[in-house]
């Protein structure tokens, strides 16, 4: 019996290893001996001769299917690249390559060959690869590194990396990871092909956007398969550019497969699947409605508990509140406290952040509003940096929020963080097309299309006042900074300057809880350590903030006072102040002093010469405004010159920069406003944007003269 087992084991190993060898040969043949003419090209177009490298041909194939043997799902990826390396930089980029190591459920097949300008080909010996390993308990992580020999500028590197992975079928409906990417790469491409093959039992979602070629359905008679493919030629490279949403602007594709054991399983919250064998390229409004309804009615423990606590709290505390906005805001803040703050103290000591799923917010809030019969909409849409709602094909592109109605007025309620206020929503949703479904008629609703509002620049505002005083030695400047931040402009600073103890201080009166139990010894120790670092870390952050934004070296900032946290809609601005000193604001110039006053509006965007030509549209996260008021105390014995140059105005429909200066008593008062009025600018108008960016950047370099009085 033992012998039989041993023989079987040996046979299996032998079979597996011989299969791997055969498969490796098969793949090698397919990649390097195919009839695909694009992969034998050696010459590149003259127009790209000055580039670092040119991708002669690129093929990416994704396969999703059930294994022929066993209860396994296969996920295979085949990537083939043929690249002309023109300069040393490209050679450096490809001289050292890495690839994954085969495992029991993952087979890796790779091949590299170098084609010299003479036409000679050298296939890289894979035994040169070096395995890099790390073990963590029973878990081993490894990858291979290989140095490509003989690589020189002018060579072509032709290589493939293929993965054939399998995993047990653990559910009746399995979603493969979605794929979304922009076609332009770091180097220009002469030819590209993307293929997407899926089992007949798979549901397929796919779409080309922003001018990417459409997927074509092809039939592989030999293998009795149908697959989708796109092909294209002559694609320019894409640089990393600021203010670019590449999935909205560059030719991009997205697809996903979902494997279903049988038809019956596709029910409930199974989503946006369409029909088997038919690629789904569009999502209908009805499907969005159904998907949203399924999400709302599905059970989750977290949302059910959250709603239960909210209901109990409302019963005790919301008596007499009838205004729908007031009631829903109270519910919003209670849920925020319950899910993100109430039990967050321990996590804070351990450096962890509390989190809650957006579904919990959506379900608990909607259930509460529905039970109270408060008119509201459930809104489905998509973040504007990911997709327009009409181009959505997968549910992970979608976003939901709630809108409470009072006559023609709306109160938006977005998924919360510890800082968000009732009435706010993600700036990524400003101006996007959306569908609203009446929450009181759920799930039998009919949606209405509308556009989310775009806020004004003053809704995302930084209003900064700075008092500047010079020490008697005219070396050190003291700058008192007072900031009022609104909308999205406050989020970054709130994150660093507020914590659980700030939230708790203002919320403990709102949400009365049982008296906290005395801390255990280990909890006391953790709290003591955290509290000992709490304020020093804030001052350290401010020091870095000054260094990064004013480009001044400073000693420890001081006198940090948070006057308002900005965490409630009736007091929505985050107000704080601090003081810093620097020796870098004032410079001696003979008997006089030059003050680098322009730097006090903080470092402005610099557009480099190379950026002046822009071939993509401009995407800003939201309109926004930055106001600065700088009050400079004129030292006794000095007069001020040069303030007339601080009066400027560069305004257009997309934004602007303006400044003015005046003398008031013994102070110079300079006020500036930089504002972005929109969240999108077509590339044809980029130069208009550069005008006011340049104006603000030039202000950074303006100086004030303190002239010694005679």
């Amino acid at each position, binding site marked *: 019996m033992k012998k039989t087992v041993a023989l079987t084991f040996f046979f299996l190993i032998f079979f597996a290893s011989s299969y791997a060898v055969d498969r490796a040969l098969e793949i090698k043949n397919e990649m390097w001996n195919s009839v695909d003419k694009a992969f034998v090209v050696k010459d590149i177009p003259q127009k790209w001769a*000055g*580039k*670092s490298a040119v991708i002669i041909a690129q093929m990416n194939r994704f396969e999703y299917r059930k294994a022929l043997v066993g209860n396994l799902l296969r996920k295979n990826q085949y990537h083939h690249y043929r690249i002309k390396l*023109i*300069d*040393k*930089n*490209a*050679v*450096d980029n490809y*001289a*050292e390559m890495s690839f994954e190591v085969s495992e029991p459920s993952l087979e890796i097949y790779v091949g590299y060959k170098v084609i010299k300008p003479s036409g000679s080909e050298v296939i890289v010996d894979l035994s040169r690869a*070096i395995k*890099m*390993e*790390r*073990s*963590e*308990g029973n878990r081993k*992580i490894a990858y291979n*590194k290989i*140095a490509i*020999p*003989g*690589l*020189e500028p002018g060579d072509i590197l032709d290589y493939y990396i293929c993965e054939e992975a399998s995993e047990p079928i653990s559910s009746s409906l399995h979603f493969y990871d979605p794929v979304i990417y922009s076609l332009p790469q770091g180097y220009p491409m002469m030819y590209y092909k993307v293929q997407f093959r899926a089992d007949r039992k798979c549901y397929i979602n796919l779409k080309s956007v922003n001018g990417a070629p459409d997927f074509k359905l092809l039939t592989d008679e030999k293998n009795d398969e149908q697959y989708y493919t796109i092909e294209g030629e002559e694609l320019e490279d894409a640089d990393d550019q600021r203010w670019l949403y590449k999935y909205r602007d560059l030719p991009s594709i997205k697809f996903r497969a979902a494997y279903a054991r049988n038809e019956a399983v596709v029910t409930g919250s199974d989503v946006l699947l369409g029909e088997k064998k038919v690629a789904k390229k569009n999502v209908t409004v009805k499907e969005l409605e159904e998907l949203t309804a399924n999400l709302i009615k599905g059970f989750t423990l977290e949302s059910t508990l959250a709603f239960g606590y909210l209901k109990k709290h409302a019963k005790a505390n919301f008596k007499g509140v009838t205004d729908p906005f007031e009631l829903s805001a109270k519910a919003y803040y209670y849920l925020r406290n319950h899910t993100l703050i109430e039990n967050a103290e321990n996590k804070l*000591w*351990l450096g962890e952040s509390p989190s809650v799923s957006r579904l919990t917010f959506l379900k608990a809030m909607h259930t509460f509003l529905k039970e109270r019969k408060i008119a509201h909409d459930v809104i489905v849409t998509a973040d504007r940096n990911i997709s327009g709602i009409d181009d959505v094909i997968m549910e992970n592109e979608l976003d939901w929020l709630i809108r409470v109605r009072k006559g023609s007025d709306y109160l938006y309620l977005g998924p919360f963080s510890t800082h968000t206020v009732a009435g706010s929503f993600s700036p990524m949703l400003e101006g996007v097309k959306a569908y609203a479904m009446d929450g009181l008629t759920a799930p039998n609703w009919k949606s209405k299309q509308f556009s989310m509002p775009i806020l004004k620049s003053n809704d995302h505002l930084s209003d900064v006042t700075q008092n500047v005083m010079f020490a008697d030695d005219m070396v050190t400047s003291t700058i008192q900074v007072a900031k009022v931040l609104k909308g999205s402009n406050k989020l970054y600073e709130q994150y660093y300057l507020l914590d659980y103890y700030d939230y708790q201080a203002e919320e403990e009166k709102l949400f009365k809880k049982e008296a906290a139990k005395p801390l*255990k*010894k*280990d909890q006391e*120790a*953790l709290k*003591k*350590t*955290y509290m*000992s670092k709490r304020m020093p870390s804030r001052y350290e952050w401010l020091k870095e903030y000054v260094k990064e934004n004013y480009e001044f070296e400073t000693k420890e900032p001081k006198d940090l006072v948070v006057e308002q946290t900005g965490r409630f809609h009736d007091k929505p601005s985050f107000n704080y102040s601090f003081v810093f000193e620097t020796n870098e604001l004032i*410079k*001696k*110039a*003979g*008997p006089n002093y*030059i003050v680098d006053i322009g730097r006090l509006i903080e470092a402005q965007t*610099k*557009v480099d*010469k*190379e*950026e*002046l030509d822009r071939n993509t549209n401009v995407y800003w996260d939201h309109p926004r405004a930055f106001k600065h008021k700088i009050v400079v105390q004129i030292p006794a014995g000095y007069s001020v*010159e*040069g303030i007339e140059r601080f009066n400027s105005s560069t305004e257009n429909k997309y934004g602007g920069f303006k400044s003015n200066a005046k003398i008031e008593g013994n102070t110079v008062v300079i006020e500036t406003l930089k504002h972005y009025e929109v969240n999108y600018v077509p590339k044809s108008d980029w130069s208009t944007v*550069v005008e006011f960016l*340049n104006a603000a*950047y*030039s202000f950074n*370099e*303006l*100086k004030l*003269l303190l*002239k010694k009085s005679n």
Partner: protein
Amino acid sequence: MLGGFLFIVSTLQAQKNTNITLSESLKTYPENRKAKVVSNRFISHYKFQVAGSQLQVTREDEKDFVSLESNYQHIERIFYNDNLKIEEFSATFTTGKSLWPEKVCGNYEVDNIFYSDSKLCAYRLNFQFEGTTISIKNRVKYDDPKYLTTVFFHDEEPVETREVSFEIPQQVEVELIEKNFEKFNIQKTIQKIGDRNVYKYSISRLAAARQEENSLGWLHFYPHIIVVTKSYATASGKKKVLSSVNDLYEWYNGLVLQVKNDPSQLKAEVERLTNGAKNDLDKIKAIYYWIQDNIKYIAFEDGIAGFKPEAAHQVYLNRYGDCKGMANLTKEMLKLAGFDARLTWIGTNRIPYNYDIPSLSVDNHMVCTVLLNDQRYVLDATEKYIALGKNAERIQGKEMLIEDGVNFIRNTVPVSNESNNLVDRTEVLMLDNKTLKGEGELMMNGESKKSVLYFSTNVRNEDQKRLFHYLAVAEFNNTDKVEVTKIPDIDRDVPLQMKYHFELGNKISAFDNDIYVDIDWNKTYQNLTIEDDRLTDYYFSRKVKTKTTKRFKIPADYTVSHLPASMNKTFEDFSFQITFKLINNEVHYSNEIIVHDGIVKKNRFEAWNECIKQLKEIYSDQVVITKK
């Protein structure tokens, strides 16, 4: 009930494993000011043992950690490799209760080294409370004693009491060479126990060792012991390990002799390269420069391969290699061209030793020496864009071990002075309305030239122009004009030269009748104030000589009303000479900064910082011209 019981146990456990008095006391020492954990006791014991014909060395470490704050995770790292095995690791609380810390072991990856046999085990120790005490013990074994080279006293965390001991049988000859002991109060005792001598070194209150930027490294500063295992006696007689430089060379040379070079595969290339050469030096350059240009540096330090060069033809075919492979290829190609070329071992300037010490720790690099007409040329092909006859800063003044058959030659790499690294910028400036126009020329030599040529040939083709613009004017606006009129030639044998002109709008400020002009916007070294608490000398990675000369033509209707102060500070090791002069209606500005050896020693930090302060004042001042 059960929950209550567990709580009591947990609390008792916590109390037993903490020593708050100790942590409070440790916190008061300045050395521990920034520390989160301290080794209250750190003992390393090296034990030499002859087993049969083999000499083995084990190291046993014991550390007693005390945390100075709660909720701190310390990662204890133990390195190992093909010759060094971790045999044991344990961690316990002071109660004796064992801990089983999470462990991650694997390859230790370092930038610029493609592969090495260096590996690391990292153990995560959780200190729950302030004052938590955890003791660790580990034992590692050296299979070959010549790989035990250097023992440090400092650790990544502060150490309160440090002991290092060596237990050496009398039949084993070991020399313990003490380095950098002068500034540290290290006590040494020697005790004879049976047939063994025990050398014990102890020191108290060590600050955490730290890697500082712009430093020559630990070997120049931290106290350490170089362990030279010379020989040992066995029943079959005396066995040598490394008793002298002769042994070291013998071992190195033995590895070289194992390399199977196939010169026939290099012949055609050598002939192609040397065909048009007019003389011997041109032939050497043709080969040397081709290797610099075409062989990419990819480092392998895999066991014995860390000491044995790869075959020359293999490096040639691969188009990559490490320093040994490149030196070997250089030697073989030059030999084919008829030259007397030799492999040469050398330590870079991070290693402050010479070959008086027979240890693997003396060198870390290999080059090729060519003997021609009583001259010795040192060829280091890992240095890209270095000329024949020039030597990289990192090997200047270092002793070499040059192969000479079964013998060897000890020789020192010549030292150049700072003028070899001169960076010289000359500009002529003039005003045109509110624009500062100018023409400039930049000359670079030595290390800067090497770097610029390397970057200019290794950035993407599309980015080359941007690099040259940056070299001309580091900061300019998109409305300014900067044009490079002569890009540098790729020529190792002449200084790098670049010419440019510019029109800049942001270098002047006009107030009424006055115009303030920022003459020198590069402001060389203005931010180079050295931190007070720096431990090691400041090293610029090169000898420094920078010179900027500018002539600012004053418009006819203006007169100079203010010039910034001049500066003349000359010290033995560095100098600053800055002058502003009005000559023939031109402001002549000159700025020359020299750091002779490229090092500001710790005892000169104060003087250096005073100079930087004065320099900043000059840079922040402006030339003022006033309308007549």
